[in-house]
């Protein structure tokens, strides 16, 4: 197990390096700089500014300085928010995004797994068809379409919930964004669970368990659920990536002061360090999460040899 984890970790490190390099060089190659503005600065001042941000050094040296900084948890200063470092900005935005994304993920797992199991147990019944229809809708309607429609219905017409803002994370502010973010994942997870549960319910060990006269509840919860959830476990990685990507647009729509909003603002303002910081931060998060999921999967699945 330890050796397996170690080899997986060794695989993750070049990925991390390439991620950072790709982000770094792409931004540096791009035309336009952070000091392009309507009034052009005098040449000397611009040179001084560039020197202050180390932009006058050769590219490879900037790159190694950046990596060195990352090792110490230093993402550099923000070009736009002059008084903040990128680390500070991530520090203020990420807890909000984590709360939003984490709740969405939990909700998606909870509802997705129960709905999928239910549909599998009553295969080809009306319950099954309605779960699948709702799930198809969740997959087909993107969350940036669903979110405004939900605001229109629940905030504008019915007036039950606030249309946007974060309210310091108050529950009524969280409901709509969390649901909008979770819906596509609920759809995917319920489809996955249904498919694998149907397969597991046909397998020999479930038949044996039933033949022993165990109550259906025990058969499902004790025997069938764990192997049926393996595909869901391996979907956790892509799901996290999807939730993070989705949170960019959901935070934008609902005016949630999270990391995704910083990212879009930073991208539009050409805030090099901030944008790169967010990409690297989220990239590392996804890679680390995938690594943990791989280990969890190997631990759960008796068929994986390590």
């Amino acid at each position, binding site marked *: 197990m330890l050796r397996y984890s170690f080899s997986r970790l060794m695989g993750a490190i070049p990925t991390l390096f390439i991620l950072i390099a790709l982000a770094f060089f792409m931004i540096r190659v791009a035309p336009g700089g952070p000091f392009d503005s309507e009034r052009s600065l005098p040449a000397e001042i611009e040179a001084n500014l560039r020197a202050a941000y180390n932009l006058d050094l050769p590219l490879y040296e900037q790159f190694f300085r950046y990596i060195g900084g990352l090792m110490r948890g230093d993402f550099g200063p923000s070009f736009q928010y002059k008084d903040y470092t990128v680390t500070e900005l991530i520090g203020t935005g990420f807890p909000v995004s984590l709360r939003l994304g984490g709740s969405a993920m939990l909700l998606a797992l909870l509802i997705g797994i129960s709905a999928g199991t239910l549909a599998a147990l009553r295969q080809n019944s009306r319950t099954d068809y309605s779960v699948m229809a709702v799930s198809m809708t969740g997959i*087909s309607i993107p969350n940036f379409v669903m979110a405004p429609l939900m*605001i229109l219905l629940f905030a504008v017409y019915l007036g039950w919930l606030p249309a946007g803002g974060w309210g310091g994370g108050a529950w009524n502010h969280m409901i709509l964004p969390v649901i909008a973010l979770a819906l596509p994942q609920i759809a995917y997870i319920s489809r996955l669970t249904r498919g694998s549960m149907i397969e597991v319910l046909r397998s020999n060990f479930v038949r044996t368990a039933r033949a022993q006269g165990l109550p259906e509840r025990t058969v499902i919860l004790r025997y069938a659920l764990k192997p049926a959830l393996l595909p869901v476990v391996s979907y956790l990685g892509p799901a996290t*990536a999807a939730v993070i990507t989705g949170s960019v647009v959901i935070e934008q729509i609902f005016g949630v002061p999270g990391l995704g909003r910083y990212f879009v603002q930073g991208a539009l303002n050409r805030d090099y360090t901030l944008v790169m910081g967010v990409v690297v931060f989220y990239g590392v998060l996804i890679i680390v999460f*995938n690594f943990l999921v791989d280990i969890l999967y190997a631990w759960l699945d008796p068929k994986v040899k390590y």
Partner: protein
Amino acid sequence: MAREMPGHAVPSVEPGATPVKGRSLWVDAWNVLRRNRAAMASVCIILTMSVLVIVGPWLSPYDYAQTDWDNISIAPEWESRHVFGTDALGRDLFVRTLHGGRISLMIGIVATLVSLLIGISYGATAGYLGGRIDHLMMRIVDILYAMPFMFFVILLMVFFGRNIILIFVAIGAINWLDMARIVRGQTLSLKSKEFVEAAEAQGVSTFNIIRRHIVPNLLGVVVVYVTLTIPQVILVESFLSFLGLGVQEPMTSWGALVNEGAQEMETAPWMLVFPAVFLAMTLFCFNFVGDGLRDALDPKDR
């Protein structure tokens, strides 16, 4: 596949009738698909939508960038021929929705072709060559797979300007990874299948083996995958346009229209509802067709 082997030929219902004609994979698949009502309805809707998107704008007296000063931000009405209403700049929403559809569908198809091209050549090369090269090529795919690509596409759009060619390439370039994996896996497993071996033993030429056995079997998977990639690509494009990073004014796409609509929804809900319905319906139909095709072309199911 199995159907083409004489021993597996389906017996004819009436004995003594004309000799049993072997049914090809595609005829079989078509028969399965035809019975799938949701998929068939979806095909019809997609076809109708494509025709509407192409000829629809000509049916309206208005142009997609033209301002009707007498009818700014009006609800749908028949008298002024603004059947979907107009936006805050007095532009006809019916024409704009269809124009947006042209862009969205075009990006969906072209970017899918880009990813198809890269994915098939990459995957087939890796699968065919095998060994160390295969290992290296797939390792690269693994690494790229772990990247948060949406973020990179956003960066690309921001830093290199928002032109439409770049959207095609960027979206196509992120979607080829799945295709490469699928094609490689298929090629690898097909190479060692019994029916390929049987064909080899019978002295069928390599070209004919590839033409009769490898390509048709790859095609099934590829066709299914293409129908599932198109909605994904449309989704990515809409996502970018929604954030204001996709196609530029006065051109539009469904994502851009949904974005405009979302900003005006309290006063002009029709601006949100029409493009949203068109976008969702298209994605819905493509997903249904993809699912249907998967059922029809999956050899495991027979």
